[in-house]
């Protein structure tokens, strides 16, 4: 079956699913909006019968507490309460959370109680990410999560042909601890075990077959500290090993210290809601940790988003540099579903590069439950530093449009080349 036809069939199937689910969600909202109690104001909110201001701080995440407290005095929005019940269930690992209304003491006032059941343990299986493209790349993930007493253990299976030069498939596990003494401090450990598949272009371009690995594994402990409001800092290590494809070449390692600094801030209240997100990541592989590779990988990203009524505009900038000799999985790539979509990454650079700049501008217009979006991407990857220049640095562009509904996304991207238009279709969720 031709790729284009397969993509169209896939997109049609996904669009059918999206519209069916959208109709279901719209119906849920219609039913909630018709609730006669919406005209009353909320006098107080309790969780399991305990009023919020009497609840111990450790029992409710601060962000959730702030959102719940903000509802007091507001009209009783049943859809918002149902959303919050779902969020409380997920955050606090209850089997079920049901919102109940009770008569308030004041006139036209009601009390809201979130009735909880089955606390302390939760089990969930999720499909967090799916992506199909007309370039015959498929990516998917399946996770099983057990949550208990604020801790979370996730075991997953993944096959990813989108993010890196290689396709990596295998198992992942991650443990996230409950707050360690203070709400601001959390610990986590991630374990990954992947098998690799290489594109023929990468095989042809690689200087030595020993640079290709058939499998890789990683153990990455991390401590995350919420420094102040919008800033969090994560410090950790990554013990990553690779089994070479070349017999007798032995295993290689890229053991590194890691640092992530995140900033996130929302400006609300005016006619334009704004969101600013910034992130800096450092991966410092050193022989002091027994690493075969020694390098420093820096990556910064910045995103600004403005929403007003039905309009959403955003700009995302990414820049990165690697000094030293990094393995292929840490090289920068363009031509993914999110960075210069539509381009073939193997035509851009089949080995990835140690420098990257990328910018995406997008504009979306909300229609009903969904959003129609157009975007313009520009970016370049190249070899900098003391690396021999293999290809000239070229700034590439792509444009496209798409439709988003919740987590579902359909996109058509057009890489801008000289005189040729080859659209690439992408369909999936959370990519």
């Amino acid at each position: 079956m031709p790729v284009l036809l397969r993509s169209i069939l896939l997109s049609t199937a996904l669009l059918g699913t999206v519209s069916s689910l959208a109709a279901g969600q719209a119906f849920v909202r219609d039913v909630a909006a018709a609730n006669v109690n919406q005209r009353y104001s909320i006098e107080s909110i309790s969780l399991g019968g305990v009023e919020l201001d009497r609840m111990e701080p450790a029992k409710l995440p601060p962000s959730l507490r702030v959102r719940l407290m903000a509802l007091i005095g507001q009209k009783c929005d049943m859809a918002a309460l149902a959303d919050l019940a779902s969020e409380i269930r997920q955050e606090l690992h209850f089997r079920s959370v049901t919102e109940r209304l009770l008569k308030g003491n004041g006139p036209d006032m009601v009390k809201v109680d979130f009735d909880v059941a089955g606390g302390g343990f939760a089990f969930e299986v999720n499909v967090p990410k799916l992506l199909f493209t007309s370039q015959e790349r498929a990516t998917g993930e399946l996770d099983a999560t057990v949550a208990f007493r604020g801790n979370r253990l996730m075991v997953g299976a993944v096959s990813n042909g989108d993010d890196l030069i290689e396709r990596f498939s295998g198992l992942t596990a991650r443990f996230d601890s409950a707050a360690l003494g203070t709400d601001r401090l959390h610990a986590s450990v991630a374990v990954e075990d992947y098998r690799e598949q290489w594109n023929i272009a990468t095989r042809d371009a690689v200087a030595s077959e020993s640079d290709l690995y058939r499998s890789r594994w990683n153990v990455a402990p991390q401590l995350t500290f919420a420094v102040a409001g919008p800033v969090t800092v994560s410090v950790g290590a990554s013990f990553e090993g690779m089994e070479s494809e070349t017999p007798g070449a032995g295993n290689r390692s890229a053991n590194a210290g890691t640092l992530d600094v995140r900033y996130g801030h929302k400006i609300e209240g005016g006619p334009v809601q704004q969101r600013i997100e910034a992130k800096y990541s450092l991966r410092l592989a050193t022989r002091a940790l027994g690493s075969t590779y020694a390098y420093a990988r820096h990556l910064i990203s910045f995103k600004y988003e403005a929403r007003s009524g039905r309009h959403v505009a955003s700009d995302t900038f990414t820049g990165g540099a690697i000094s030293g000799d990094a393995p292929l999985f840490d090289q920068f790539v363009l031509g993914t579903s999110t960075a210069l979509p539509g381009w073939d990454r193997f035509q851009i650079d089949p080995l990835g590069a140690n420098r990257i700049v990328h910018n995406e501008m997008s504009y979306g217009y909300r229609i009903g439950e969904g959003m129609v979006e157009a975007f313009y991407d520009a970016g370049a990857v190249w070899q900098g530093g003391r690396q021999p220049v293999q290809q000239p640095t070229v700034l590439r562009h792509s444009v496209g449009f798409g439709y988003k509904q919740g987590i579902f996304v359909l996109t058509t991207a057009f890489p801008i080349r000289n005189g040729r238009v080859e659209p690439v279709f992408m369909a999936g969720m959370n990519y």
Partner: protein
Amino acid sequence: MRNRIPVATFLLSASVLCGTLRAQDLAVHLDGDYLRVSLPHIDFLQGKPLNRLKDGGSVAFMGLVTITSTPTSLTPIARSGARFALSYDILEEKFSVTKIGQTPDSRRSQSHLSAQQAELWCLDNLGIDRSELPADRPFYVNLDLRIEDPRDQFGIIGDSGISITRMIDFLGRTGRGSQPHWLKSSGPYRLEDLKRIEIKGTRG
């Protein structure tokens, strides 16, 4: 005698399980240009849905009236369906019902109702246009009334993707038919024999 006990038990269980389908006559009449149905001893607001309403939540009902040529036909000659959102005013202790239409203009509501008035209002708003009824042959009228729990749809899709556990739970409950469900048929009728009752108001 020993062999009869299981049969008796089965019949007793079936009669209990089908309690909601007890012998209620599905009455049919013409109201202006519409065929409408009514149940003299209607009582579908009970059990969990009623508790949910008394907790201030919403409960959705889906009603479907079909016209068929035989009592067992699966292919309707005409059909009319509607979705209703019910809620209970916890301060005034009265029911409110909204017929959810395809467009905001087609939505209509009624409040300050008793449970029975709310139930009757739902049935009164399930009409089939008289022009769709067969004029030259007898037909049967079927009523299918079921609860659509809007809460079931929450949580399957969220920021963390598609929840397989919630989907299995949702499909399992749908498959087990745990949602209350009422089915009733009556007939045969002839169009010219139908009783005419004029009820003022804008319905469809």
